């Protein structure tokens, strides 16, 4: 793992890259080429860039874990710190592996932060669900009970949910049903399910997408109007 105790000679680095004097902020000047050049540069330069980037990633990871403190309430401060460090380490590895894919469509730091936030978020979700059983079978269709609704509205909604329940049982494949039940009905985080099923977020979402498309078609064929495509 990376040593974060590296003391970066930033002034030397900044001069090397930009011709600036001792202005230590020169490195994080949003000149995207500087980052990429430095990370591909000779060992001395590269080490400095790696240390600076790791520090930024660690800050992003701590931010993300801080947002999720309620999910990590059973962890000590040290354990949360370790989790942040792991996220920053993993993000740095991912960034170096994908450096060629940086298109310059955003600032380099914005591009890099998303890796740290992703790693921290995934780790937090998995940690929060660690040891929890995930029900992959059965249906627990959410109920919407509201005494203020009209009898007609309650009947229509009940019919729609009944039709949806029927469609889940009849038009989905077993795998689609498992994924739909876990993700859509039971709110299992997709990264957690991906880990349990030894697959990827993308593969699971594709399955969920296909299942939703089938269910929409089945409900439409049964005469139910579905209009939930609006914005948030």
């Amino acid at each position: 793992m990376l040593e974060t105790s590296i003391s970066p000679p930033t002034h030397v680095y900044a001069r090397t890259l930009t011709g600036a004097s001792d202005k230590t902020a020169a490195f994080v000047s949003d000149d995207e080429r500087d980052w990429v050049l430095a990370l591909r540069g000779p060992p001395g330069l590269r080490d400095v860039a790696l240390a600076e980037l790791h520090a930024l990633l660690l800050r992003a990871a701590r931010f993300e874990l801080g947002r999720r403190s309620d999910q990590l309430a059973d962890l000590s401060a040290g354990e949360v710190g370790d989790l942040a460090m792991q996220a920053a380490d993993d993000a740095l590895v991912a960034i170096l592996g994908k450096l060629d894919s940086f298109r310059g469509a955003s600032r380099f730091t914005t591009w890099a932060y998303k890796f740290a936030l992703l790693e921290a978020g995934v780790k937090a979700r998995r940690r929060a669900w660690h040891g929890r059983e995930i029900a992959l079978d059965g249906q627990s269709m959410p109920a919407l009970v509201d005494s203020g609704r009209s009898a007609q509205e309650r009947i229509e909604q009940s019919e729609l949910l009944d039709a949806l329940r029927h469609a889940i049982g009849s038009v989905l494949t077993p795998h689609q049903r498992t994924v739909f039940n876990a993700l859509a009905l039971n709110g299992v985080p997709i990264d957690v399910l991906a880990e349990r099923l030894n697959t990827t977020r993308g593969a699971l979402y594709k399955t969920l997408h296909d299942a939703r498309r089938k269910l929409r078609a089945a409900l439409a064929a049964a005469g139910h109007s579905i209009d939930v495509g609006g914005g948030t």
Partner: protein
Amino acid sequence: MSADDRGQELLRRLLGPAGPEVTCDECFELLDEYVELELAGEDADRRLPGMREHMQGCPACHEDHESLRDFVQLERHS
């Protein structure tokens, strides 16, 4: 939130967006650009179609988007 809103929210969560959407991988690929367009006040949804729809249907990508937007905003104001 009214009962009707809750019903729509439930259906949205169960059935996801109706329109075309990007995949999770494409969403991650474009997320930094999307956020910077948003923060610049530009029409990110027009420039990068399918992103918003995907984030409406994928809670994890939705959270990733909120985190990146908020963190970048925080960094720029600190």
